[in-house]
């Protein structure tokens, strides 16, 4: 446990040292703030005290930002060879994977925490459904967890960061959009499976304010699968 925290702390530090964290925070808050308050179907146009607009924006911005954060996590270490130094220390492959996952998850949590003033402001100007907002934030966190673990896996299979970024987006796009679109074209069992696999369906049902165990199981199982596959691709070096 202690080792995981040591790795998490270093990764988080390196996000902030390399300015990635600041750029990400500014862009994320800028985008979501702009579309929540100023442009498009913003709060004033809709005329309702609701954060749905914000959740819809964050749903897409996080989808693009997370691969940019995760792409370097393992790919860079593999390229520079520091992975050898790291894995010959008294850590297991699993601890490295979890530590890196947590660092990015914490950074996203920090970014989301900075949007809490939006919620507080709207709470003061209208009748905000607090339960729905809490669920929306939980949904965003769960979704981020899924994309971080996918991004981590993409980063573990290559030593090129661009490849890691693109493959994370590619895998993510299936969950984000493609399964959902395809499920409309199929009926019966296949349609059902595709709609179950679609992340946007599960996110929608959570952000509507309904906490269903099926949704939670969905998010956590994909997250764990991603982490497991990342660990596996690190451990694979022992086999060949």
């Amino acid at each position, binding site marked *: 446990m202690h080792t995981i925290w*040591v790795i998490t702390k270093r990764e988080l530090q*390196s996000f902030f040292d390399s300015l990635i964290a600041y750029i990400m925070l500014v862009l994320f808050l800028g985008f979501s703030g702009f579309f929540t308050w100023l442009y498009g179907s913003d709060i004033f146009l809709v005329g309702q005290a609701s954060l749905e607009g914000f959740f819809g924006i964050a749903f897409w911005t996080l989808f693009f930002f997370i691969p940019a954060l995760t792409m370097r996590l393992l790919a860079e270490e593999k390229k520079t060879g520091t992975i050898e130094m790291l894995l*010959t220390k008294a850590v297991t492959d699993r601890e490295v994977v979890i530590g890196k996952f947590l660092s990015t998850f914490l950074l996203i949590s920090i970014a989301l925490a900075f949007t809490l003033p939006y919620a507080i402001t709207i709470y003061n100007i209208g009748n905000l459904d607090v339960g729905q907002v809490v669920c929306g934030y939980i949904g965003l966190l769960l979704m981020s967890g899924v994309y971080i673990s996918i991004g981590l896996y993409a980063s573990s299979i290559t030593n090129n960061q661009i490849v890691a970024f693109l493959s994370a987006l590619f895998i993510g796009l299936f969950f984000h959009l493609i399964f959902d679109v395809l499920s409309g074209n199929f009926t019966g069992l296949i349609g059902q499976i595709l709609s179950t696999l679609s992340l946007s369906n599960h996110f929608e049902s959570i952000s509507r304010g309904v906490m269903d165990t099926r949704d939670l199981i969905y998010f956590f199982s994909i997250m764990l699968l991603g982490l497991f596959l990342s660990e596996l691709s690190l451990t694979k070096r022992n086999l060949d």
Partner: protein
Amino acid sequence: MDINIENLSKRYGSQKAVDQLSFEVKTGEILGFLGPNGAGKSTTMKMITGYIGIGSGEVRIGDKSVQEFGDELKKHIGYLPENNPLYLDMPVIDYLGFCAALQGVAKEKIEERIRLMVRMCGLNAEKHKKIGELSKGFRQRVGLAQAMIHDPEILILDEPTTGLDPNQIVEIRKLIRELGKEKTVILSTHILPEVEATCDRILIINKGKIVANGTAESLRKQATGQEILKLRIEDGAADQILHELRRIKSVDLVEVMDRSMNRFELQSRTGASSKREVFTLCVDKGWVLTELIPIETRLEDIFRNLTTN
């Protein structure tokens, strides 16, 4: 902790990188690992440290097999990988702290260990700089410092002195010698004088196989077999000296190197030494022996002989 390696093999595809290696290193011993590029040195070291899996055979550290207790054993190993990979965006002190924490150094001891490493490796002036700003030699010192930060019982150093200037090399060798008194050290290098200066024992491998194993002296003995002396004898005629030298029983061959300077090269019979006879001969005849130089086979020659066939 001793390291015991038995029939260690590893293949990459169809190529055998390491082929049935067996050797052991005892506590308090420094083993020099020599071999041409691609001989399997780094692969062997990676298997000992548990970074890559063992193809076949066994590596035991203390009494524990690396295959079974790999994660547990990592704490006792300090490893400097080839090319010395480091987090370039971290300041030296932070990096050493990170390594110490990962290796399970107690929180209250970390600072003390860092201070000791900074002093031992001469990093004091650079300790607050980012590693990426350091020159190659200083990065190498950081690499050594991170390997030793948790005071490991086993040190595995893959080419520890590359990139260092001659002064630093002398310092680092001294440091390794010092450490080697209580620890088990394996170091690989291309620099042959380095092995002689630091190592108790030399292991030469070629194409994944051991081709020589022993101290520098024992390797020399194996390689030469016969003693060769360079002589300069004054106050006598060259021909007469030559004649007398050839009459010595233990002498196999004598050649005149430089007639005007009275220089000779003398080869003794296998297993015999003729230094004393030469001296007594000179005393008897009233000649002055101004030079007597035993010629040692250079390690380079041994190395080339063993690894080019």
